[in-house]
C-alpha cells in the first residue's frame, strides 16, 4: 500500500477526512482516541503481519504510524 492509502485508512478510523494529515500529533488529536488506535493497529496487522504493538506505541505522529506499517 502507498503512504496515501494508509493515510486514508487512518482517516477512516478517525471518522474525519479533513483534520488528519501526516503531521498530526496523535496525543493531541481527540479523533485518534484509543478505540481508533486499536482499530488502526488491527488493520495494520492485516497489512504487515510482522508489526508488533511495540512498534506502534512508539509512534508520536501519523507519519510515524505510516512508517511503522510500511517499514
Amino acid at each position, binding site marked *: 500500500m502507498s503512504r496515501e492509502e494508509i493515510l486514508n485508512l487512518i482517516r477512516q478510523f478517525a471518522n474525519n477526512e479533513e483534520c488528519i494529515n501526516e503531521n498530526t500529533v496523535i496525543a493531541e488529536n*481527540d479523533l485518534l482516541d*484509543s478505540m481508533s*488506535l486499536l482499530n488502526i*493497529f488491527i488493520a495494520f496487522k492485516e497489512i504487515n503481519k510482522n508489526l508488533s504493538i*511495540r512498534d506502534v*506505541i512508539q*509512534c508520536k505522529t501519523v507519519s510515524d504510524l505510516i512508517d511503522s506499517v510500511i517499514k
Partner: protein
Amino acid sequence: MVLKEKKLIEFINFTKLDSNVLKEILVHRNSDRIRKNMVSTELISEESHLNFCHNLKKDKNNLYFLVRDEQELIGVVDFKNIDHIRHTYEPGGYCISHNSDFPNLWGYVLSASTFICLKFKLYFPKILVKKDNHQALLFNTMKMGCILTDEDNEYYYLSNNYLDPKVNSEDKILGDLSYLTNIFDLRFDL
C-alpha cells in the same frame, strides 16, 4: 453571543457515596467488558464491595473516585497501594460510559485526575496493563505519554515521570492543565 456551557465532570470519593450509587458502580465493575481487563477478574459480591468501600474511610493507602457528569456515571479512577513516603501509587480505573458526543472524554478525565495526584502528592505511577488489553496499552503510551519499562507473561509495566517535581514544577503542570478548566466544569469531592 451564545456562551457554550461547560461540561460538568465531578470526581467523588467513594467514601462520600451512598450505597445505592456504590451498588450501581458494582454492576458496571462486574460486567464482562470491564471485569476482563481488571487484575482481579472474579465477580465481586455486593457485600464484599460495600465492605471494601466502607473500609476505605480509614484507609490512607487506597483512594477510589467515581467520575460522573450531570446524567450518568462516566467511570472510576483509583490510586492503589499509595506509598506516601516515596510518592508512588498504582493507578487504575475503568470507563463506564463512552460519550460519543465527546471524543476522548476518558482521556480528559484522566488528565483531570492529575489534580488529585497533585493534591495527594502522588508523583510516581506504577502502571500495569494486561498484555491482551491492547487498547489500554495504546491509550497509556500514545495518548498519556507513558513509557513501556518492562513486561512479563501477563503484564506490561509502564511509567510516567510527568509529575516528578524534578521534571516539572507544579505551576508548569497546572499551566498545562488550564485548558481543561476552559472546557469542563471540574468538581472534586475528595
